[in-house]
């Protein structure tokens, strides 16, 4: 009888060109390489210096998202792009992709968007694939049962030149979430609760497999939100076994298999699950019934608490107190009712159609509180069109929120979309690090429902007051 295998092991072993030994890492084959403007220029320079080509242009897809403007006037060229160095970086990617014959979703492409939104949306992300990108949130694609992880620029160069990476086999961690998420509790709250439980280094050196009834009940958008933030627990990757929800999402997408190829692919994809009795290096169990909306209060995603909770008191811990000082918060303080200045609904974590629908459900017929700037940034141009077809944009703009072009925007603030020093932002993004959304900016990470509720109230608010189901 064959030894039972985990989902991770099945995908890993199918991609070992050369298995690892005591002395050398595995040579791992990469099925899909996603490229963006920030982490690729120096890799293309390396290729140029060494006279190398991109080995598999058919397995390489580039988009631009981090440095791109979200102001429609800048995109259309009616006004110059505000951040000059960002504009130059965009040009450099265009030049590199043209020279090396790499498919690029450029600034004016109707398919452009955040790299971790467009990969799945185009059907390029598929179960069982190995997927890399010079971006730590590549873990997102694991929602489809792919092994997907972030790499540095040197490794971007390795994959461009050889379609392979040298990798040591990571350990495995199973996180089982049973039960059912309650009213107003989203995939974002679930992953924040997981990070709160295992810590920001709890997944280091490991690939997480999320499983259990609460995971199976999530839409693909929700699964992507969960896998996306695996890196915030330090994990190499996050994975979820593909099922009918996965297949239904992918069917008919432009880069997904078509016709007879589709049926064959689905048969193969159905094998991609952890066998009964497969051994994980570590297991964690979470009761989904007990989860509530979550919000961060500190300067990493592990500093998280229930929306109606109190900031913990670790007054003797100087690192903890430094973090609270940056946030302008005190131990035992309640965040509910705390005035805020900015709401950001967007990012590779929470800018998909269902995220925008949830935010719109809260904002419909209401107004953003005076003194609050609310920015809604769809994850891709396709999502923007889909949202507009549903007239979500009208709900947002009627409420007084800004409706923008797609991109990473205020999650990372490279394009000039930033939060001012000292201001509080309830943000649906993934990182509340010091200065992440702008020097001195104070980020409170939460779900799209919590962000929208907070925009309406003008302070940190409980989304359950706005949600009926």
């Amino acid at each position: 009888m064959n030894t039972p295998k985990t989902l991770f092991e099945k995908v890993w072993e199918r991609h070992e060109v050369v298995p690892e030994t005591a002395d050398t890492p595995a040579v791992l084959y990469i099925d899909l390489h996603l490229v963006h403007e920030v982490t690729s220029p120096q890799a293309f320079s390396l290729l140029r210096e060494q006279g190398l080509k991109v080995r598999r242009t058919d397995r390489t897809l580039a988009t631009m998202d981090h440095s791109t403007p979200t102001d429609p006037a800048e995109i259309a060229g009616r006004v110059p792009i505000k951040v000059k160095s960002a504009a130059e970086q965009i040009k450099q990617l265009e030049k590199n992709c043209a020279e090396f014959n790499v498919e690029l979703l450029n600034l004016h492409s109707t398919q452009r968007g955040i790299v971790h939104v467009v990969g799945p949306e185009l059907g390029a992300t598929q179960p069982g694939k190995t997927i890399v990108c010079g971006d730590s949130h590549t873990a997102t694609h694991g929602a489809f049962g792919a092994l997907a992880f972030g790499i540095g620029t040197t490794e971007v160069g390795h994959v461009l030149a050889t379609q392979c990476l040298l990798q040591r086999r990571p350990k495995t961690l199973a996180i089982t979430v049973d039960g059912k998420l309650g009213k107003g509790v989203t995939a974002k709250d679930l992953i924040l609760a997981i990070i709160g439980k295992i810590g920001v280094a709890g997944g280091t050196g490991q690939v997480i497999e999320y499983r259990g009834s609460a995971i199976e009940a999530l839409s693909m958008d929700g699964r992507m939100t969960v896998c996306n933030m695996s890196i915030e627990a330090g994990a190499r990757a996050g994975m979820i076994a593909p099922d009918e929800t996965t297949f239904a999402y992918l069917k008919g997408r432009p880069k997904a298999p078509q016709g007879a190829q589709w049926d064959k692919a689905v048969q193969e994809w159905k094998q991609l699950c952890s066998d009964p009795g497969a051994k994980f290096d570590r297991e964690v169990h979470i009761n989904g019934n007990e989860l509530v909306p979550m919000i961060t209060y500190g300067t990493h995603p592990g500093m998280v608490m229930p929306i109606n909770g109190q900031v913990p008191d670790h007054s003797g811990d100087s690192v903890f107190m430094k973090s609270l000082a940056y946030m302008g918060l005190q131990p035992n303080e309640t965040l509910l009712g705390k005035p805020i200045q900015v709401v950001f609904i967007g990012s590779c974590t929470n800018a998909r159609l269902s995220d925008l629908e949830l935010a719109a459900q809260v904002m419909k017929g209401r107004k953003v509180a005076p003194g609050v700037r609310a920015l809604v940034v769809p994850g891709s141009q396709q999502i923007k069109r889909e949202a507009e077809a549903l007239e979500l944009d009208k709900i947002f703009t009627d409420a007084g929120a800004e409706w923008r072009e797609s991109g990473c925007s205020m999650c990372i603030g490279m394009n000039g979309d930033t939060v001012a020093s000292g201001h509080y932002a309830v943000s649906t993004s993934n990182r509340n690090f010091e200065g992440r959304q702008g020097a001195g900016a104070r980020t409170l990470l939460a779900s799209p429902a919590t962000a929208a509720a907070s925009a309406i109230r003008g302070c940190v608010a409980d989304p359950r007051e706005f949600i009926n189901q």
Partner: protein
Amino acid sequence: MEPIRLIKSKTVVLPYSDIDTDQIIPARFLTTTTKAGLGQHAFSNWRYLADASTNPEFILNQDSARGCKILVAGNNFGCGSSREHAPWALLDFGFKAVISTEIADIFRSNSLKNGLLPVVIDKENHAWLMANPGTELTIDLQNSTLTLANGKAVSFKIEGFARYCLLNGVDELGFIMNQLDTIQQYEQARA
């Protein structure tokens, strides 16, 4: 890449855990298309005040930090983004090694590829280093030990292949390129 064997230096201590790559090099400096000159922006939000003047309180701005090649930091150093600009910035600033009890995966991988030595040691010796900034250390990569001025030797773990590459200045790309025939066979078998 230059081979690394011995690193001798005084240490500088950043007494915080979970120092993320946004602290090491804030995102506003990532619009560059080269690797050069990032050292001036290393820890920018901590090194400079709002008016862009130097923050005299910050350890890296003090005389005691000048010329230090070894950074000692709290647990989980380098967490967050995959930006290789983080090790580029630390190397350009003058660091050759980072010591912690845990170093985040992508940062560690990026560091190894650029000749910044990530050194993971046990909690007890780490606590001593954290409490004794400016101590003189010798890091011996061949033997995977760091030696204190009083002669006490502490071993550290480093993956064998990474150590081989650092000791010999081997570029991983060359190693993979040597396997191109095998890669081609793999592709043909799967096609």
